[in-house]
């Protein structure tokens, strides 16, 4: 049975990235935090979407589960991508999608919701994403601005010096995507 082991794969999320080890085999995927503690396990039958995205110096694997959770694993090399793409097809019956990251530096784009994730897109490229499960409060300011505030508690855990606490989006009246929905930006 093919068993793929990767010794330095980080889990990305609120608070930065956590280094760890990843095992991928016909049962599914398993990531364990270096030094113990947090683990992420997604059974093969529970995986809905996989995608690759080239990031700085490596490739990121995005995993969306059927129960709406989403994980991003960072640190794959080009050779890993080729091997795993073949493996995911044959063993999981899933062909990973390819996504591109936007590095244009624009602060305008589109917002897309999928499960618990908010993605900010620049054209078809992804600028950044946020998990709404970490949002402690949302507020509307006037008719055009939506503010998301994040939980304070787990902000100090990972390898981040600066941690995002609040982000607001400006939705001009010309935007037709979210008309009449004041609970979400």
């Amino acid at each position, binding site marked *: 049975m093919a068993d793929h082991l990767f010794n330095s794969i980080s889990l990305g999320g609120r608070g930065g990235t956590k280094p760890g080890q990843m095992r991928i085999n016909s049962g599914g995927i398993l990531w364990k935090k270096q030094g113990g503690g947090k683990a992420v396990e997604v059974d093969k039958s529970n995986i809905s979407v996989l995608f690759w995205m080239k990031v*700085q110096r490596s490739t990121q694997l995005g995993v969306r589960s059927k129960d709406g959770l989403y994980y991003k694993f960072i640190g794959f090399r080009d050779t890993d991508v080729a091997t795993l793409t073949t493996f995911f097809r044959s063993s999981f019956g899933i062909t990973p999608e390819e996504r591109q990251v936007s590095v*244009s530096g624009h*602060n*305008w784009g589109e917002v897309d919701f999928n499960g618990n994730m908010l993605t900010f897109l620049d054209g078809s490229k992804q600028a950044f994403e946020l*998990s709404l499960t970490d949002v402690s409060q949302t507020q509307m300011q006037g008719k055009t601005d939506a503010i998301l505030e994040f939980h304070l508690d787990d902000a100090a855990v990972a390898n*981040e*010096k600066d941690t*995002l606490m609040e982000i607001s989006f*400006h939705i*001009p009246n010309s935007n037709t995507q979210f008309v009449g929905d004041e609970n979400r930006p």
Partner: protein
Amino acid sequence: GDNRSSGRSSTELVAYKSVNDLPPPRGEMMIQVDQKNEAILLPIYGSMVPFHIATVKTITSQSDTNRNCYIRIIFNVPGTPFSPHDANSLKNQGAIYVKEVSFRSKDPRHVNEVVAQIKTLRRQVAARESERAERAT
């Protein structure tokens, strides 16, 4: 590069062409200022996300009674007075804008450094663009 030479109304505002052009990652994720490419990089959910300096309107820092430091960055959005994005906002009808972000930092010295660097870079770019605009008239 010089492809930004059309100035502040440029709709071709681009900080980086490819993900490989981003500055190398550091051990600890933090706000970075890239003078050369005139961009700031913000740690958002485990990724370093670039914003062109021309999208930045103001930056402020503040500390609370528990000695926590905060950095607040306000971006240019359409509909505010003196916004340099009017050409963009016309072109990007229907777009949504990141308006403001707030970070808590563990390191007050880094906060002061970042705020100073961003202010300087903004000033430099603004001065160059207004000079260019004057020369064009």
